[in-house]
C-alpha cells in the first residue's frame, strides 16, 4: 500500500468515525431532549377557583386552661364549627394528649408554657420573666371518637389536668342536632312516686312488682326506633343472681330532650325474702344502635323489697 492509498484509507476511516460520532450525538440529543421536555401547557385547562368556605365548616374544640406556677386548671371549653390552626412547634415539657374512648392517644402536641413572658428591653436585649397567672387557649380539630384531653408534664411524667370532652360534645349536639355525629344519647332512669333517690322501698302486689322506666334522649337528632331495653332485678349478694328480667323496645325515635316511659312488671315468687336487691335498666345491651355515649346506657339502683 503506497502513501496515497494509506492517506486515503485513513481519511475514509476518520470520516466514518466522525459520521458515527455525529450520529451518536444526534441520537443522544434527540433522546435526551424528548425525555426531559416539559409537558406543554400553552392553553390552560379551565378549572374552578377555590370556594370561600365560611358555611361548611368542620368541628373544632376549644379549651381554655388557667396556669399558675405549679398548677393548671380547666377554665372552660366548647365544641363548635370552625377550623383549627393545628399544632405548631413548641418546646418539650408540656404535652397535650387527645385520647379516644379506650384511652389510646389519637394525637399529641407540645404546648408553650404561657407563664413564660418574653420581652424586649429598652436596650434591645431579650429577657424572660415568669407570670403569676396566664391563660392558654388550645384548639384542635374534633372528631367523635375523642373522649379526653390531657395535659402532661413530660419532664416529671405527671398529668396536670384531664378534661372529659364528652359533656362538651353533648352541648354541641344539643345546638347542632343535625350533625351526623350527633346521634341520640339514650339515658335510662327509674321513676316512681314516693321513691327515695337511693334505696327505695318497693312492695310486691299479689307477687307483681311494678317499676316505671324512663328513657330520655340527651343527645342529638339521629335516633332509631326499636332500641331494646333490658330491666333486671337481681340479688344483693356477690353472685348477683337475676331473679327476674323484662325486655322491651322503645317504639319511637326520640328527639333531643324527649322521653319514653314504660311500666315494667316483674312476677316474683311469693316467698321472696324481704331485703335489698339490685334493679338495673340497660339501654341497647348488645350495642346494636348508635349512641353518643354508651357509658351512660345503664342505671343500677339499690331497692328494698318489703312485703305489704
Amino acid at each position, binding site marked *: 500500500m503506497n502513501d496515497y492509498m494509506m*492517506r486515503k484509507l*485513513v*481519511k475514509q476511516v*476518520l470520516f466514518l468515525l466522525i459520521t458515527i*460520532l*455525529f450520529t451518536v450525538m444526534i441520537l443522544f440529543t434527540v433522546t*435526551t*431532549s424528548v*425525555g*426531559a*421536555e*416539559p*409537558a406543554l401547557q*400553552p392553553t*390552560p*385547562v*379551565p378549572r*374552578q*377557583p*377555590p370556594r*370561600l*368556605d365560611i358555611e*361548611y365548616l368542620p368541628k*373544632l374544640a*376549644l379549651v381554655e386552661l388557667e396556669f399558675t406556677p405549679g398548677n393548671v386548671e380547666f377554665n372552660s371549653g366548647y365544641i363548635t364549627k*370552625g*377550623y*383549627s*390552626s*393545628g399544632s*405548631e*412547634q413548641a*418546646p*418539650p415539657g408540656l404535652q397535650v394528649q387527645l385520647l*379516644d*374512648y379506650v384511652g389510646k392517644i389519637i*394525637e399529641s402536641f407540645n404546648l*408553650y*408554657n*404561657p407563664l*413564660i*413572658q*418574653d*420581652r*424586649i428591653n*429598652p436596650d434591645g436585649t*431579650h*429577657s*424572660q*420573666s415568669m407570670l403569676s397567672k396566664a391563660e*392558654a387557649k388550645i384548639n384542635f*380539630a374534633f*372528631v367523635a*371518637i375523642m373522649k379526653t384531653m390531657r395535659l402532661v408534664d413530660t*419532664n416529671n411524667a405527671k398529668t396536670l389536668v384531664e378534661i372529659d370532652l364528652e359533656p362538651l360534645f353533648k352541648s354541641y349536639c344539643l345546638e347542632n342536632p*343535625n350533625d*351526623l*355525629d350527633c346521634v341520640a344519647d339514650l339515658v335510662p332512669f327509674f321513676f316512681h312516686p314516693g321513691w327515695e333517690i337511693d334505696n327505695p322501698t318497693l312492695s310486691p302486689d299479689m307477687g307483681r312488682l311494678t317499676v316505671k322506666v324512663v328513657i330520655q334522649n340527651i343527645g342529638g337528632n339521629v335516633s332509631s326506633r326499636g332500641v331494646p331495653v333490658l330491666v333486671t332485678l337481681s340479688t344483693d349478694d356477690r353472685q348477683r343472681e337475676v331473679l327476674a328480667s323484662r325486655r322491651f323496645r322503645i317504639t319511637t325515635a326520640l328527639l333531643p330532650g324527649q322521653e319514653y316511659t314504660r311500666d315494667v312488671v316483674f312476677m316474683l315468687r311469693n316467698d321472696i325474702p324481704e331485703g335489698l336487691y339490685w334493679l338495673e335498666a340497660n339501654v341497647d345491651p348488645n350495642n*346494636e344502635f*348508635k349512641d353518643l355515649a354508651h357509658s351512660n346506657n345503664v342505671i343500677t339502683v339499690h331497692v328494698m323489697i318489703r312485703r305489704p
Partner: protein
Amino acid sequence: MWLKGQLARCTLTAKLPQFVSVGLLISLLIISPTLALQPQESSLARVTITVEKLDLFECDDVTTTPDPYVRVMINGENLNPGNREIDYYESPTYPRQGYSTYVNLAQKTVDMAIELYDADDPWSDDDHCDIFAGEGRNLALRLDLETCAITGDVTSQCNVYLETQGTGGEAATIGFRVDVDNFLTPGVQVRCTHDPIKPQPGDTVTISAEVFDDDFTQLAVSQVEIYVDPMTAPVATATNADWTIFSITPTVNEFSYYCRAVTASNAVEETPWHVVPVGYNRPVIPVVYTTENRTNALDVVFIADRNSYSGSNDTQFLTAVADMIRNGFYGENIFLKGGARTNFWIARDTGEVGPGDACKLGGPDHWGDSTFAFANVGVIVTTGAGGCARRSRRLLSVTAGDFNVVRHEVGHAPFGLADEYDKNGGSSCYFQPDPNPNIYETEGDCHDDLANLNRVGSTCRRFEVNYPPVCDGPGIWWTSEPATNDMMNDNLEPQAADLRSINYYFDQCGKGGC
C-alpha cells in the same frame, strides 16, 4: 518511508481539527434548538385530589358514628398518613378535603389511588368501603400530564367532578376531582398581586403579573398572562415582556384571578387562583384566598396595631399589608412558591403592640376563640418597633415595611425555626426544633444532620445564649447555618435548614395538616 509516513500523519493531523470543527459545528447546530427546549431542571405541577362528596351508605356502621377517612396516594405518596377524618357534617356533599403534591412533568403520567374507610370504635377494625363497582374496593387511576386524561377505573379528564359507587355489603359513594395546576419551572417566578388589597364595591382593581428569575431579577418571557374567572382565555397578555397588568371593576361580591408565564420553550410557571371578596364585613376578611380547605393552607391574618392605625380600614395599614404580601412573602422564592398554599386575611378589629415592648402583643377581640382558631399566625403591623414572635399565642409584631423581619418572624411561627444567634447578651428559652432542627443541643447532633442538609464536610458553629432561670436547657447551641446572609440570624436569605422546615410545613398543608 518514515518521512512519508510522518508527512501523511502530519497532513491528517493538520486536517483533523477541520473534521472535528466541522463535526462540532454541525453537532451544535443540531443540538442548539433541542437545548432551547429543555428546562434547566425538570418542571413541576401540582396534582390535587379533592374529595367533594361522601355517602357511606352500606359502609356506615349502625353502632358507631360515621367517621370517614380517605387514603389518597399520588405518585406512590400517601397523602393522609395519619388517617385524618373528614367531618361528615349535615350534608355529606361538603367535606371538600384536598390532598395535593407536586409531580415532575418529565414522568408524563402519574398513578393515583383512593381508598375510603369508616373508622370504627376502638375495639374493631375500620370498615373498608367499596367505592368501585368493578373488582376491588379502591379506585386506581392514571393521570396523563400532557393531555390531562384520566384512565384506569374511571375514564375522564382532570378538573372535572367525578363520582363512583361500589357494590356489596360495604358499598359507598365518593365524589372527587383531580386538579392539575400551579405549574412550576425552575428559574422562572411569577408574582401575581392586586391593588387595592381589600377592594370595596365600585373600586377599580389593578391586577399585576411580574416575572423574575430565581434572584428576583426581572425576566422577559414569551408571554405573561392574567386570567380572570370565568374567562378561559387570558384577559391580559404581554409578549416578550416581564410584566403585564389588567384592571377590573368587580360587579359581583368576589372575583378570582391568576397569572402565568410561558417561556420560549413553552415551559409554564403559574400561580394558583387568588379569590378576592369585595366589600366583605366579617371579623376576619380574606384578601388573598388560594386554598379552600383551611387545613390545606397556611392562614396568615394581618392585624392593625391600634397605636399605629385608626383601624383595619386605615389606608396606610392596607398599603402596609399589601406591601407585606408583595415584598415580604412574595419577595422571597420559597414564600412565593408557598403562596399556592397560603391564604392572607385581615382582622376587622385591631390588636396592640407594646407600647415600649415589641413582644407585648394583644390580639383582636376573640383572638384564640373560634373566629380566629384557624389562623396559623397573626401578624400585628405597627409603625413603631416590631420584630417579636409570641409563639404561645400565635402572634407576631412587625414594623410596616420591614420585609426581612416578617420573613424572620414567620420563620419562628408557624414554621418552627429557632433563632441562630446569641441574643447580644440577652437571654432566651431556646429549644431544638423537632422535626427539622436548625439549632442543636450538641455538636454531634449537628454533625449527624449535615448530610440531610447536603452539607457533608461542613462544620457546625457554636453560639452561646444566656439561659433565663424560668426555663431549663443548655446555654450552648450548635448550627450548620452560615453566620451571615441567613434568615434566622441576620434576617436575610433562608438557608438549607430554614428551607427544609418551610418546605416540610407546606408539604403538610398538602396533606391537610395546616
